[in-house]
């Protein structure tokens, strides 16, 4: 198989899987899961094969295969695959992490109703994401960009009976649409500016390999303003997908989807698409200053704000969501600091440990019977040892503790920052500190101390009303019909019905079900998942327990990856050849043409940066231990009181949601209503119906002539005849004839 054929296979295998599931195996759970896993597995195998071909010690190669997708009026839109170091790396990330998560889903989604739908959407997502990865041109990228948005919509809104999930999916889609709006404009602006420039020998094209050289040739000087704007507009697409301030608001809400989805899309891969896009189109940005400054600034801001928000989150997933935001900010910052390879490196390591963390969170949620509130966890280290260890590794990697993978990539970014921009370096250090701190907080709240889930909470009665009865309308039957279910030991833990009683559902005929012990997978999706939900009336029954191996396996694999992924790019003094990844990425275009990445000195290890970052991380862990660890010597409440209103701002997520809500409710909807008003009251009732009323009035007047009396008609006819005669003779006599 040629390399491009491998790429095509990687790309299409998940699509085929999705199509097969949608068409044939909707009713067969095992088959659907097998197909999906097979699809992504094929992708992984092919990616590995490609990696061996592309990423040799010698000069990296680039291979491409394109066909015309649409051509009209001199504009040709093409489709194809572009295989080089960048795309192969990303493809490895997507398929590798993807495979882990697909497998994990087999356990996590046990008993869900839309099992096949889930796997079809997951496969569709993998297809779309791989499409971005292998895309050869801006339009193809955009197409898959949108498809990623769609599959994300379908997965965030997976629990479509839960209004909050539907709302979140819509928010994600629309926010991404706003980014896409900018991106479309950017693509068109770039394309037509190039067309206007009329560079000899280069036909206007969307294809990277064709337009990239032009940007480095310097002939585009007169069009600098337009092209810089185009680059920025392309970045707005990345801004939405990679959740940069101010288009980040969808990501925390996207946690409404099943946890594996959060792991795959909203942590590891999809949100990295923005970073990947900027890397892929770095030639658009490299020649200009201000777009990259904006990128760096927004990245820094995102990193910082998101990190603060992570402190106030009590949902085990939301902490990770904010952390994702923050890390994406890091990557974006690196992009803005002209070190895309550092960004890609961090993307890769982050994908490993963030997927790991999310899957651990998923395991915790699963183990705690769909409890997501960290305040009612604790002590899980003893009950779920594997999960806890994995989480610990992931958290340390995220915090950037040497020699785990996160350390190396974070160091690369901090190194770039210290070289280019001191303020951003300070921000980077702050974020490193905060990251370690909130991850420490999450660790101690979740895994250390005593289990708090079993305690009864005040306000049960009040909560009983808050839990919508609807949750139970969904049939709580699947688990009990699932033969494999017992093997996981759920029954042993007895999801006793009392947990439901606390919700006040007795009146809903619960007893009739007789098997509500298994209801955890179908009920109560409304009842949890909101960190502002306050204390739940009761947990969903039973003690937490370790998850089955189908879920533990991926955790272990990802944990191992999180440890070793840093090896990809150990910088120069520490490794013999140094910075392999950088070599692959930087050298991507060394042979076929001018580099797409800016020329930069090879990454070297800075001891000062490494020590600074490590100190910040250790300090963060220490402070977290002081607040949340066994000692609890410092009080969170006193700290909150100390910082005054800032805590409130953080809790309100720095008011971004409020601003958007205001825009939607107070700006967009009134405009729509105004247009509706104009349509109904003005256009329809005044203009159109007005014309009708006027003609009707005339009709009524004329109707009076037709009074039903024959004589009137005869007389009128007579007058008409008379008129005709008069005209006839008058003209006949006037004319020259006769």
């Amino acid at each position, binding site marked *: 198989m040629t390399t491009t054929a491998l790429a095509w296979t990687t790309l299409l295998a998940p699509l085929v899987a999705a199509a097969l599931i949608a068409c044939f195996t909707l009713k067969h759970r095992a088959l659907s899961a097998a197909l999906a896993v097979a699809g992504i597995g094929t992708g992984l195998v092919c990616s590995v094969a490609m990696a061996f071909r592309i990423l040799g010690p010698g000069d990296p190669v680039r291979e491409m295969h394109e066909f*015309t*997708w*649409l*051509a*009209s*009026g*001199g*504009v*040709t*839109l093409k489709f194809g695959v572009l295989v080089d170091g960048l795309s192969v790396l990303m493809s490895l990330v997507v398929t590798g992490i993807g495979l882990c998560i697909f497998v994990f889903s087999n356990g996590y989604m046990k008993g869900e109703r839309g099992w096949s739908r889930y796997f079809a959407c997951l496969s569709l997502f993998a297809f779309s994401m791989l499409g971005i990865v292998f895309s050869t041109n801006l339009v193809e990228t*955009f*197409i*898959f960009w*949108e*498809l990623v*948005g*769609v599959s994300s*919509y*379908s997965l965030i*809104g997976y629990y*479509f*009976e*839960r*209004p909050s999930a*539907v*709302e979140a999916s*819509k928010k994600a*889609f*629309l926010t991404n*649409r*706003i980014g*896409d*709006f900018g991106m*479309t*404009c950017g693509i*068109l*602006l770039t*394309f*037509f500016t190039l*067309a*206007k420039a009329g560079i000899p020998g280069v*036909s*206007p094209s969307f294809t990277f390999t064709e337009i990239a050289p032009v940007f480095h040739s310097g002939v585009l000087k007169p069009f600098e303003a337009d092209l810089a704007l185009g680059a920025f507009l392309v970045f707005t697409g990345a801004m939405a997908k990679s959740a940069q301030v101010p288009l980040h608001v969808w990501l925390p809400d996207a946690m409404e989807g099943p946890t594996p989805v959060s792991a795959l899309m909203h942590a590891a891969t999809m949100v990295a698409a923005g970073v990947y896009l900027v890397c892929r189109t770095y030639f658009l940005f490299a020649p200009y200053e201000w777009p990259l400054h904006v990128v760096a600034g927004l990245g820094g801001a995102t990193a910082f704000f998101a990190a603060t928000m992570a402190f106030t989150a009590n949902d085990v997933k939301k902490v990770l969501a904010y952390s994702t935001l923050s890390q994406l900010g890091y990557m974006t910052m690196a992009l803005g600091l002209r070190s895309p390879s550092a960004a890609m490196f961090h993307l890769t390591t982050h994908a490993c440990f963030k997927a790991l963390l999310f899957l651990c969170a998923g395991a915790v949620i699963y183990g705690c019977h769909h409890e997501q509130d960290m305040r009612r966890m604790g002590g899980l280290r003893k009950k779920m040892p594997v999960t806890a260890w994995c989480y610990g590794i992931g958290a340390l990697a995220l915090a950037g503790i040497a020699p785990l993978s996160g350390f190396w990539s974070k160091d690369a970014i901090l190194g770039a920052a210290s070289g280019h921009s001191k303020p951003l370096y300070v921000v980077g250090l702050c974020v490193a500190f905060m990251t370690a701190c909130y991850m420490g907080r999450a660790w101690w709240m979740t895994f250390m101390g005593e289990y708090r889930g079993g305690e009864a909470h005040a306000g049960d009665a009040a909560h009983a009303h808050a839990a*919508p009865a*609807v949750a139970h*309308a*969904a049939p709580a039957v699947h688990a009990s019909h699932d033969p494999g279910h017992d093997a996981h030991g759920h029954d042993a833990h007895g999801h006793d019905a009392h947990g439901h009683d606390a919700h006040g559902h007795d009146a809903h005929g619960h007893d009739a079900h007789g098997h509500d012990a298994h209801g955890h997978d179908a009920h109560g999706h409304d009842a949890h998942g909101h960190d502002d939900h306050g204390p739940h009336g009761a947990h969903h029954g039973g003690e937490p327990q370790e998850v089955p191996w189908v879920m533990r396996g991926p955790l272990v694999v990802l944990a191992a990856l999180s440890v070793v992924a840093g090896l990809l790019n150990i910088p120069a003094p520490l490794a013999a050849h140094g910075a392999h990844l950088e070599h692959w990425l930087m050298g991507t275009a060394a042979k076929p043409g001018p580099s797409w990445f800016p020329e930069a000195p090879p990454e070297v290890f800075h001891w000062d940066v490494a020590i600074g970052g490590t100190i910040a991380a250790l300090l963060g862990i220490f402070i977290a231990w002081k607040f949340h660890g066994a000692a609890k010597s410092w009080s969170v409440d006193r700290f909150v009181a100390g910082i005054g209103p800032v805590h409130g701002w953080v809790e309100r997520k720095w008011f971004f949601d409020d601003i958007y809500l205001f825009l939607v409710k107070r700006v*967009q*909807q009134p*405009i*729509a*209503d105004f*247009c*509706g*008003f104009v*349509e109904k009251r003005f*256009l*329809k009732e005044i*203009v*159109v119906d007005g014309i009708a009323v006027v003609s009707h009035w005339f009709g009524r007047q004329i109707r009076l002539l037709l009074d039903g009396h024959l004589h009137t008609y005869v007389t009128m006819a007579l007058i008409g005849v008379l008129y005709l005669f008069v005209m006839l003779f008058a003209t006949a006599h006037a004319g020259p004839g006769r």
Partner: protein
Amino acid sequence: MDSSLLELLILVPAVATALMFFVPAKSRALVVGLPAVAGAACLALSLRLFWIASTGGEAALAKLAPPVTAIVPSFGVHWALGADGMSAVMCVLTSIVMLAGSLVSIRSERTHTGIGDRPKVFFLLFLGLVTGVFGVFLFRDLFLFYFSYELAVVPMYMLIGMWGSTQATANKDYAAMKLTLYLTAGALVALVGLLALYYQAWQINGKPSFLLSDILAARARFDAGFQIWTYAFLFIGFAAIIPMWPLHTWSPIGHAAAPAAGSMMHAGVLMKLGAFAVLRIAYPTCPEGAAHWMPYVALLAMMNIVYGGLVAMAQQDMKFVIGFSSSSHMGYTLLGLASVEVIGCSGSVFLMFAHGVMTALAFSLIGFFYDQTHNRWIPDLGGLAHQLPFVGTCFVFMAMASAGVPGFANFASEFMVMVGAWKAGFVWQAVVSVFGVVIGAVYLLRAVRDAFFGPRNPRWNKLHDAHGLQRVPFLFMLAVLLATGFYPRPVTDVIDAAVRPIVQDVQRTKTYREKYPDRIELAEAQR
């Protein structure tokens, strides 16, 4: 068979209409089967036509045209048929909607709101309408063209008036009257333009002839002023059916009041006649006029897109949402036409196809649940995906198509329009049209959320999902959208070949060159 392909395309629906008179009204199977069979036959013929177009190009299509025969020599009415890529695609669209429409109507037997009563008359009118539509797409004689145009428009009055909805928001009498008045008034305005062409060509050629080719032969001697004013009449007349803002108010209520198959035909095909006629008649006969007016039309198109979308956002009735979204989407068609660029106009034609199928799917789905719920008021619905998983899934797909998601033909066509508009220098209009996609997503997702998602609503527990054969039309239309969306090139190549000479004609005019001195020239795509 190829030699009489075009005649057959006209005759099959015409003969089916005639046969329908003799079908016993009691025999439900025959009454529904005849249009379905005719639809299948038309689809086969249209696909054959499309195949010829895509393998042989315009030259092969030109050979299909039967010899021109004078019907009324004294007035110059001729039996003249002709097809190009544009008409081939539109014929395929019409056949798809015709087939799907008749298949969808099989279901309505059980209910009272569909076409449960007097199905024979319904399908008689339906087939008559289709005959007219095929006539518009295929006749190359202005008289027969206009005749077919009216033939297509008038049955809609009865379809809505007799089988329409009686809801207060969409009163069928009001809707039917409004639609008919608008469309016939528009047709009359266009008639002024057509007659102007006829007389002008008569004076130049020295013989009366409604033949499009005769008029085109005389075009070289039409002066610019004549072209500009004639174009204004033609365009405004045809714009009423597109429908261009502010002539659009008949359309949403027309959609809303019509029965499912009627809405499908109406939104899916009828609305496309206007833009088709502009490209077929107005552009070639009055290129100076096209060059002169189109920048202003681009502004109105912008209005269509944004205003239509915003009004759709303010709607609560499902059919009105789709209705206004149609008027928003047709804004893209207008913008594409206004761009006077090959890619823009091709995009318009492709969008007509894509939107036709998409909107037919939308109305068939709405019809499906409306037949059972008797309710389209979005706040009353909710959670329908629990009871109607299949229909719900299709609806989500439809909404995605409508929101311009890649993978559906709508995306490709709208993107072409945007490229065309930008290329023509209508940068702001293009930006606004891109933003229209965002607006579209807002109201469509909102409609999907409120109608299909959310907790199970026990009020709708008695609803039946589509099963077995009932799924066929929905899947069929969805498959068409996806197939052309995944690989649009076969369709766009055919359209492009037909549109290119028409547009290039306009681009060669004096007016155009004066208006766009710094036009971006792109190398023609290598085929």
